[in-house]
Every structure is written in structure tokens, then in C-alpha cells.
């Protein structure tokens, strides 16, 4: 055993010698490194996954609440305001569900375009959305009243910014993947929204009809998960996908009361 | 010009002596002859000379009894004892380079010897060699007894042998303390506790309480042989330095002297024993 090691070491030693002799110039080395480094970043593919998210069982009735505490908010609404926690249509199609690739996707560079979060009528819009690590998030106060944007991130740095002026914008970036991150406004106790932070662009938030589509996937095997603010994370679903393929995956949540 | 040089070299090579001649020139040159005063020992004369003209070999007689050189007779245990002694001397000196006999350092110097001192097994060779030497000496004595080799004229050499046995045990015993770990300290504590019970000289020995003048005891815990041996009431740093000096200086010198006498007497008493 020990003798074997010895021989191996001698072999390595001779290799080291030859490597030492054939030194490349610095520029060449640099170029080689640059090439291999650029290869490391993942490339978008051509496959896609689409589907719908539905709620089974009796959907909770739409809750209503008052925003009268602040006259500015009151002025922008007539009467009570709809609670956005669970929004499902008659068929049970769920809105505001994030579907994303939990396992299997690599890291992708962040797009330079920013995601916008608007506070309008003392409500967050969108209520649920996704963003990539490093992608700018622009938070705007469109109301003529004080809002504070209180980010309750755990993995990322949390922050709490006051926006006393109408039209005031604040830009933030997330540095790590985290799902979900809650935002709330401490001035208006009802205001909150959720964001998912991902290292890749493979996420989608369901619209009014509960449908979502994730495209640009390279061929491979992925684990998909849906997340809803009240019902949490769904059971994961595995998807094997080839280039150019379009697969359909549906998620369901069971209503709890 | 280069061609000339080449030619010259070729000529010189052609004249060069054969390897045998070189060998001969060296073996019969002044330097060689001044070191080795005899030829290769394959003739009786050279064999005699090989032994006689060599300091180390001249311990031996030129000729010995045929029966005496047999391994089955001598078991070579005396020789091995001596080899082990030399071995222990060499490794012991190497150990002394690294070892400081103080309470702060003794233990951790031994740890260093185990952990990272180059070649790493000096202490092992020393320790196992010491154990082996004890056994070799016993077996040597056993052999000498079983062949009746202590009988006249070798009586006194047997006595020296017995003393050398004691010296061997003492060397081993004093060395046992030096690693300064629990094993060492307590083995020495157990071993030296008996000294307290030495008749008249140990304060827990019979008769010690009788040695008194005017009601003052002369042999007490602070003056008895146990105290003298340890340099204190218990095994302590004073004991360490005492045992170190005994182990590295005193006992080896005595051992070497007695060994010289022992070997010399073997020759003078007629070499390896044999039936008359």
C-alpha cells in the first residue's frame, strides 16, 4: 500500500517537472481561463412547462376589510377592500401562485431590467411576484401618504425604508435565493406582499385563470413546486424534458378553513 | 587544435590501466596499506591479521573452539546483549538531543519525538531495544548456567555477569521515568516505594526507629535512602534529574567498564567454554 503511494508520488513529481518546463505565456493562460469561465455560465434552452393551479374543495369567500384608518387610503377606495390572500375563480383556478423550479436548474445571470413593486391605493401591486438574484427591484410609492417598505427577509438582508413622498422610488437587490420573502407596511397594517428570489429565470406567477408558463428551459430533469401564501408549498413534481419539448404540469391545493 | 586534443585524449585512454590494475594500485597503494595492514582474509595469515590488527575484532581470539562458535551452543545472546547496548547508546544520544529533563518540557519533548521529530522511531528503538536487552541478558545467563560455564576458572566472570544483569535492570528502570508520563511516574513510584522499607536505612524499614540519639530519629522521611534516591518525599522534578543523570551518565559508565572486564575475562579464562 505504502509502496504504491510512493510510486504514485514519484509519478506526480515527474509530471510536475514537465509542467514546470512547458510554461505558457501569461496572455495565453489568461485567454484560456476566460474561455473556460465563459463556458461555465448556463445557457437558456428551448423547452417549456406550462399548466394551471387549482384549488379543490370549498374556496373561502372573499374577505373584505376596511382601509379607513388613513383618510388618503379611504379616498382611493369605495367602501371595503378585497383581501388578496386567496383569489380563486368559480372553477377553482388560483391566482397569485408562484410555480418555480426547485431543483435541477443552474445559475443564470440576472437581467438588467428591474422588477417594479408599486404601492397604490394602500395596496401592493403585484401582490405576489418573482425576481432573480441581483435583479434590481424598484419600489414606488404612488400614494400621497407615508408608506414604509418593510422587507422581512431571513437569508437576505432585511430592510425597512420609509417613503413619505408620493412618487418616491427605492431600488434594492437581493443577494441570495430565498423563498418566500414577505413585504409589509407598518403604517397600514393590512398591506403585505410576497416575492420569491431565485437564481434562475424559471418561475412564473399564475394569473387570473390560474395558468402559468415557464419557458427557456434547457433539456434536463427538474423538480417543480408551487407556492401559495396561505397554503404554502405544494408537493414537488418531477419533470424530464427534452429540447424544444413543451410539457404540461398542473398543481392543486386543498382548501382549508 | 580540437582534433589534436581529441587525439591526445584517445591516446591517453588507450594507455589507461585496466580496472584490475586500478584495483591493484589502490589495494597496494600507501593509503590503503596504511589502513588495512593485511590482504583479503582468505589465507590463514590474513585471517589472523584481520582479527589482530582490528581494534574491534581483537576482542576475539584468533582461533576458537569449533564447538564454541556454534549458534546452537552460545545462542549469540551475549553478543546480542552487547549489540543492543551499543544500539541503545546511539539512539540514547540521539534522544538526548531532543530531550530536556525538566517538568515543563520532559513530557512534551517525548510527545515531539513521537509526533514530528525526523525519522520518528528513535524512541521506539530505544524503548523496545531496552526491553529486548533485558530479555537477552536473562537468556545469556540462562545459557551460561545450562552449559555450566560458570565453573572454574570462570567463577568470577559469572559474578561480574550477575552485576551486569543488575546494571541492565537499573538502566532500564532509571530510563522508565524519563518520558514523565503517568505510566513512568507511577511505575517508578511503585518501584522506589520499596526503598522506604530498607532495613535500617529506610524510615519504614525494620530497625530504622532504633537509630536515634537522645530521642532524635536520624532516619526519617527526609533522610532515608528513599529520600536520597528520589531527591524528595515523592517522585518529583528532582527525581527526574537524578534519574536522568543516572541513566545517561553514571550507570552507562559503570556498565561499559564492567563489560570491558567481562569481555576481557572471557578471553583470559580461555574463551568460550567447552568440555574439557
Amino acid at each position: 500500500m505504502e509502496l504504491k503511494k510512493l510510486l504514485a508520488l514519484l509519478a506526480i513529481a515527474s509530471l510536475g517537472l514537465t509542467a514546470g518546463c512547458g510554461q505558457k505565456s501569461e496572455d495565453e493562460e489568461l485567454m484560456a481561463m476566460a474561455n473556460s469561465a465563459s463556458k461555465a455560465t448556463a445557457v437558456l434552452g428551448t423547452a417549456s412547462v406550462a399548466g394551471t393551479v387549482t384549488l379543490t374543495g370549498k374556496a373561502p369567500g372573499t374577505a373584505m376589510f376596511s382601509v379607513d384608518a388613513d383618510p388618503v387610503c379611504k379616498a382611493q377606495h369605495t367602501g371595503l377592500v378585497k383581501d388578496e390572500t386567496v383569489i380563486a375563480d368559480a372553477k377553482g383556478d388560483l391566482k397569485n401562485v408562484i410555480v418555480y423550479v426547485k431543483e435541477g436548474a443552474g445559475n443564470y445571470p440576472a437581467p438588467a431590467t428591474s422588477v417594479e413593486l408599486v404601492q397604490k391605493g394602500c395596496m401592493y401591486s403585484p401582490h405576489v411576484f418573482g425576481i432573480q438574484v441581483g435583479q434590481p427591484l424598484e419600489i414606488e410609492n404612488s400614494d400621497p401618504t407615508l408608506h414604509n417598505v418593510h422587507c422581512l427577509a431571513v437569508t437576505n438582508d432585511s430592510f425597512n425604508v420609509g417613503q413619505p413622498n408620493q412618487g418616491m422610488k427605492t431600488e434594492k437587490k437581493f443577494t441570495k435565493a430565498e423563498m418566500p420573502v414577505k413585504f409589509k407596511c407598518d403604517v397600514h397594517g393590512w398591506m403585505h406582499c410576497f416575492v420569491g428570489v431565485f437564481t434562475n429565470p424559471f418561475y412564473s406567477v399564475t394569473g387570473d385563470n390560474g395558468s402559468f408558463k415557464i419557458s427557456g428551459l434547457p433539456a434536463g430533469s427538474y423538480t417543480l413546486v408551487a407556492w401559495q401564501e396561505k397554503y404554502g408549498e405544494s408537493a414537488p413534481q418531477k419533470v424530464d424534458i427534452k429540447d424544444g419539448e413543451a410539457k404540461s404540469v398542473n398543481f392543486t391545493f386543498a382548501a382549508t378553513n | 587544435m580540437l582534433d589534436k586534443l581529441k587525439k591526445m585524449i584517445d591516446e591517453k585512454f588507450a594507455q589507461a590501466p585496466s580496472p584490475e590494475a586500478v584495483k591493484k594500485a589502490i589495494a597496494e597503494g600507501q593509503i590503503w596499506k596504511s589502513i588495512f595492514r593485511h590482504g583479503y582474509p582468505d589465507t590463514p595469515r590474513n585471517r589472523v591479521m584481520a582479527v589482530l590488527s582490528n581494534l574491534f575484532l581483537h576482542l576475539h581470539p584468533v582461533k576458537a573452539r569449533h564447538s564454541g562458535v556454534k549458534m546452537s551452543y552460545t545462542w549469540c545472546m551475549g553478543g546480542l546483549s552487547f549489540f543492543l547496548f551499543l544500539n541503545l547508546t546511539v539512539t540514547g544520544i540521539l534522544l538526548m538531543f531532543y530531550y530536556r529533563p525538566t517538568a515543563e518540557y520532559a513530557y512534551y519533548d517525548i510527545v515531539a519525538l513521537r509526533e514530528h521529530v525526523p525519522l520518528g522511531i528513535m524512541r521506539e528503538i530505544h524503548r523496545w531495544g531496552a526491553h529486548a536487552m533485558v530479555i537477552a541478558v536473562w537468556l545469556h545467563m540462562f545459557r551460561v548456567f545450562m552449559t555450566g560455564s560458570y565453573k572454574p576458572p570462570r567463577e568470577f566472570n559469572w559474578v561480574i555477569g550477575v552485576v551486569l544483569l543488575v546494571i541492565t535492570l537499573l538502566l532500564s528502570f532509571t530510563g522508565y521515568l524519563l518520558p514523565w508520563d503517568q505510566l513512568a511516574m507511577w511505575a517508578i513510584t511503585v518501584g522506589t516505594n520499596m526503598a522506604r522499607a530498607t532495613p535500617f536505612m529506610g524510615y519504614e524499614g525494620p530497625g530504622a526507629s532504633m537509630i536515634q540519639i537522645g530521642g532524635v530519629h536520624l532516619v526519617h522521611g527526609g533522610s532515608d535512602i528513599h529520600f536520597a534516591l528520589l531527591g524528595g518525599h515523592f517522585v518529583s522534578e528532582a527525581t527526574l534529574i537524578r534519574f536522568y543523570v543516572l541513566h545517561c551518565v553514571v550507570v552507562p559508565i559503570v556498565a561499559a567498564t564492567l563489560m570491558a572486564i567481562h569481555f576481557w575475562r572471557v578471553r583470559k579464562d580461555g574463551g568460550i567454554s567447552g568440555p574439557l
Partner: protein
Amino acid sequence: MHYILDAIDFVLQPWSYFLFSVIAFWAMIKYRETWTEPAFAVKLLWGAIGAIVFSMVYSDHFREIASLPDNVPIFLMVFSVGFFTWLSFRQGVLNDRRIAQGQPPIEKETSDKKVYVWPDLVYVEFIATIVGGIVLLVWSLCLHAPLEQAATPAWTPNPSKAPWYFLGLQEMLVYYDPWLAGVVYPTLILVGLMAIPYIDKNPKGAGYYTFNERKLAIIPFLFGFFILWVTLIFLGTFMRGPGWNFFGPYENWDPHKVVVLNNVNLSEYIWVRILGIGLPANFLIREMWGFLAVGAYLVALPPLLTKKIPLCQELLEKLGVARYGVLMFLFLSMASLPIKMVLRWLINLKYVIAIPEIFFNI
């Protein structure tokens, strides 16, 4: 398997261990013609190796103790002593056969011829040195020298043992006080060893292996060497556990083991148990029985033996009074250890003479 181990643990006690070793010794002397045959000896060797392998495999405890680096010399000692005992007896037996047939011993065949020490002796010595060096190197490479926690008197390891070559003496401490076991006996052993050439006046057996011609010398010497030294080291290593209590070789060393220790002094036996009166205040009177016994043993016994045993008479005549006296003193001193052992086991005798006032206990 564990029944066998447990049975061995049960059977082995200090007294039975001693008994077995004495029986083995007797057998060794008695059946020397048989066991020195190489074929038989190889069987014995395999038996010994088998016993050790068996113990190592089936007893975790034995393996743990046996594999302590400092106990490896014990095996080296046991096997080398065994081998060389065989070698010497083998040659002795062969010589004895020749002598019985009127031939000289084997050594005599060649002892008159002389050979040059170069190369016959020097070469052999050189090879022995190299082989010794190999053994030492391999041993050192495979086994680390033991090193425990740095020395501290704050906690005592249990058991605390002397270096292995002194375990015979430590074992003696069970039966005799330190001044005897640790001082007087070692001195006597050395004096006795030194005295051997001056007492042994037997002119035969010099320079060759023999048993028959030197029975009287060899038997006591080997008894001392084997029974009172080597086997006691073995016992001290493998069967003395915490509190210096006796444990079977496969028995776990439980530091909380409790054993009966009801030892009684001779004076108490006689004054209290036999005579039924209390102990006298004066310790000289109190211990007079012991003094009488020791005196009788050392002083009266040697002359008495000459009267009773022809062999002793013969010895006295051969050696003269002085030599005979010294011989008997040394011999009786040696015998006192097994005698005390037996007395301890038979009648729980603690001390023959017990004067703790001046630390004089025998």
C-alpha cells in the same frame, strides 16, 4: 466459547495458578525425554500459539491487555524462554543419552578442533547483529512506544504496576512486606546467583548441555527462574488488576471488585485461637512463636536435614560445613516464598512474625 473462558477464569486462582505451574515444572523435568523431541515440541508451540490466538479472538479483555505495547516484551520473553529451554534440554537430553552409552557429549567431538574466528565467528556475529537490527526496526515501526497523560500525582492509575521485569517482586509484596520482598529478597537473589559457582562443586557438566549430571544445580535454579520469576511476571501482567486484585485472564478488570481479606497473624493463631488468651503486651513475647518458627526453619532445619535425608548428608560431606550452611540458607530462603504462599492459601496466615511497631513483619 464463553463457557470455556469463564471456566478458565473460575479455575484460575493464585493458588491454582501456582499449583499448575509447579505441576508443569515437574512434568517438564520428568518427561524431558518426550517433549524435547522436535515433533512434540512443534505441537507444544502450536498449542501455545493456538491458546493465545484463541484468547485474543474470544476475549476482548485479554486482547486489550495483550495488545498494550508494553506487554509485547512479555510474549517475546515467554516464547524465547520457551524456545531456549527446549534447545538446552534437547541438547542436554541428547548428551545424556550419549553419556549413558559411555560416549562423550556432542560438544566434545569438536571442542578440540579450533577454527579461525574470521570468518566463522565474526561473520555469524555480524549476521546476528543485522537480524537483531531488523527485528528491532520492524518492532519499532509497527508499535508506538506507550505514552500516557503527563505525570501528575493528583490521580493514581489503578492498578499501578512496576516495569514488567519487576512484576515478580511486586507479586511477592502480596505475601511479604516491602522490606523483605523489595529489599532483602532481591539482595538474596543476587547474592545467591553470585554464590552459585562457589557452591556448585560438581566438576561435571562444564562446557556442554546436560541434565543428568547436574540435577541438583539445575532443578533449583530453574524452579527459581521459571516458577518464582517468569510465571509471576506473567501473572502480574495478565491477572493482577485494579487494587492488585487477582482476576482470571479473561475477566474484566472491575475497579470495584471486592475480595475477602481475612488474614491472621501467627501470634493471633496461637495466643488467641489455640491458647484462648489475649495477646501479650510485650511484642517480643507476643511474637515468640514466630521467632521460634523462623529460627527453627533457618537454624535448626539444615542440620536436622542431614540426619533425615541422605542427599543432604552427602552434600554436607561433599561441600563442607560452610558451603552447606550457605547453600541451605539460600535454598531455604527461596523456599520460604512458596511456603508462605501455601500457608496464606491454606490457613490465611498473614505474618509469621508481626511487629508493626518497628516495621518488622515476616
